[in-house]
């Protein structure tokens, strides 16, 4: 999937992946896509909840070998 910015939040724990994502989203334009890498299992539910509450769109969530990849489109 195409993306405009990548955030490496691997090794970070709650609530840092969300806080970093919020900051990274502030640096892209509306409609652009942020790719997020995380190793925090809690971030799967957290990014879904974050998207739901902020109006940013979670395009996809994937897991491979304990690593999670999210694509989020800025509102």
């Amino acid at each position: 999937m195409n993306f405009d910015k990548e955030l490496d939040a691997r090794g970070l724990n709650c609530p840092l992946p969300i806080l970093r994502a919020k900051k990274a989203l502030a640096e892209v334009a509306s409609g652009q896509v942020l790719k997020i890498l995380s190793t925090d299992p809690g971030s799967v539910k957290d990014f879904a909840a974050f998207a739901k509450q902020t109006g940013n769109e979670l395009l996809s969530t994937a897991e491979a070998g304990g690593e999670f990849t999210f694509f989020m489109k800025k509102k």
Partner: protein
Amino acid sequence: MDTKKMAIIATKGTLDWAYPPFILASTAAALGYETQIFFTFYGLQLVRKDLSVLKVSPLGNPGMPMKMPFGPKWFKSINWNMPNAIQAIIPGYESVATALMKQTIANNGVATIPDLRELCQEAEVKFIACQMTVQLFGFEHSDFIDGLEYGGAATFFEFAGETDICLFI
């Protein structure tokens, strides 16, 4: 849609209990909440310039696992809890427990309290310190970080009365 609001009263002054108010406030701010924390009684320690005053005590705290943050896995899984009477007579027990806790925090990619506090301030979480407790505990305003407002219960209610979420921690 109106902006959602959250108010927290932070009353605990230990390293472990410093986490919930700062985690929730920074996350709420990231979710778009207008957020305020009212620091009162021991919670005032969380807005001191010097955060090294924050310690964690396993004494009288049966819920706290005492595990080592280093060594092989079998060693890390040992729980070193011991009777309160013994904990109480070991000099520096609290400081050692605090150092081990800080190492565990770092090992797990959990943010430090200074970092979380700064993230809250960057996200414009409003900090209010209880003026009554400042006096009661003999603190000076110069003991605390910049950007604090000082007020009392009525100041808290002014904002808390309009919130969607209001927590006592």
